[in-house]
């Protein structure tokens, strides 16, 4: 996700050429979406292949479609894992299918069924799933500039704004290719994801005790596969480590579904601590960082400190 942070500085035109590969990679690997069937797998076209082409240089429609289908099929198939996990978590066939039809963002779906299986409050469970879906708003922001969709199409297109469609669209050299890539990826993925969800749920009902088959390990394995490519820098690793401590530490004492929300605080906490560390170092010559995105976020971060300090301090104490 480092790339995502860096990108706001890149002028829109350049973003196609320089940021697209990292975006695609970041979106795809990060994105908790429908399983990101390719999180670590063979990367379908758009990621490395198309990046070097000059911005604005037209690309054959067939090549765009091929890229889009590659991503859509690979990830779409992983809906099977969701269907099995959801059914194994005690959701009915209808509930499982409605989730894939109406939520259609994989990590949120896995998080929700996991929280329901743990017996949490429904709204706390939904909150965890919601926060995982928040990143899609940032994808939408990129896409709205790139695709320039008519207003009346946006409510429809919004449903397909997920990691994979964003990755494919951002990797395209022209608006026409981006629109085509977005549409083909979205359609392929939506159809397959829902179909495989149904098959997975039916399969789970057929085999009965899904735990005996180790299906309860599919959820955490999916999360881990989504997480692994994000752990690029010390900051991400620190956030992950702190989140694990918070998530496990509060599990026995807080209602189900709440500890994961507490763990989300690891993100601002680490940013704040980092901002403070950099702030301390500025007097000693931290000017190289001053102009970077990171420096910007640091400055922003420190303005929030006045508000956040006490809460975070308390949190840290509790954690110990």
């Amino acid at each position, binding site marked *: *996700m480092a790339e995502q*942070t860096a990108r*706001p500085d890149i002028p829109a035109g350049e973003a196609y050429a320089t940021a697209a590969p990292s975006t695609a990679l970041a979106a795809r690997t990060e994105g*908790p979406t429908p399983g990101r069937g390719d999180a*670590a*797998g063979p990367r379908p076209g758009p990621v490395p292949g198309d990046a070097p082409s000059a911005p604005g240089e037209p690309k054959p429609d067939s090549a765009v479609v091929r890229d889009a289908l590659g991503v859509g099929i*690979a990830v779409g198939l*992983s809906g099977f894992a969701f269907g099995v996990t959801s059914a194994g978590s005690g959701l009915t066939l209808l*509930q499982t299918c409605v989730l894939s039809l109406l*939520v*259609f*963002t994989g990590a949120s779906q896995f*998080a*929700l069924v996991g929280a329901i299986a*743990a017996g949490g409050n*429904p*709204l706390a*469970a*939904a909150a965890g799933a*919601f926060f995982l*879906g*928040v*990143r899609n708003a*940032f994808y*939408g922001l990129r896409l*709205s*500039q790139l695709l320039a969709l008519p207003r009346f199409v*946006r409510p429809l297109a*919004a449903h397909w*704004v997920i990691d994979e469609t964003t990755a494919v669209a951002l990797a395209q050299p022209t608006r026409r290719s981006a629109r085509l890539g977005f549409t083909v990826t979205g359609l392929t993925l939506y159809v397959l994801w829902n179909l495989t969800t149904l098959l997975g749920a039916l399969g789970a009902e057929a085999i009965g005790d899904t735990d*005996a088959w*180790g*299906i309860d*390990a*599919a959820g*955490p*394995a999916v*999360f*881990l*596969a989504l*997480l*692994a490519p*994000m752990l690029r820098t010390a900051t*991400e690793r620190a*956030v*992950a480590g702190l*989140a*694990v401590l*918070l*998530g*496990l530490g509060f*599990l*026995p004492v807080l209602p*189900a579904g709440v*500890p*994961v929300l507490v763990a*989300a605080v690891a*993100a601002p906490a*680490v*940013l704040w601590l980092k901002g403070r560390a950099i702030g301390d170092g500025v007097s000693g010559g931290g000017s190289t960082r001053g102009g970077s995105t990171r420096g910007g976020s640091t400055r922003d971060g420190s303005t929030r400190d006045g508000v956040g300090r006490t809460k975070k301090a308390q949190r840290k104490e509790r954690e110990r």
Partner: protein
Amino acid sequence: MSIWIAIGATAVGCYLVKLVGLLVPADTLERPLVQRLAALLPVALLAALTAQQTFSTGQSLVLDARAAGVGAAALALLLRAPFLVVVGVAVAVTAGVRALGG
């Protein structure tokens, strides 16, 4: 019933955040801090979820076959296995350890 409430809330919430991105003026969410937080939030959530779903049952911390399965998945990730293989390894190892009485 409460499951339907959770499904409804998730569906509405997740759809609205997708829509917001397409509708708001472009510079609204462009502040570096907001971008940085949005990037790190999934890291925190996924890490916590991985740990919880591996090491807990209900509200108690446990160490069981899932730890072996997820550990094997981690190894597969290090070896750059494809996504579906990673999940498959986790499931197979967990089932195997359970079958052996783990």
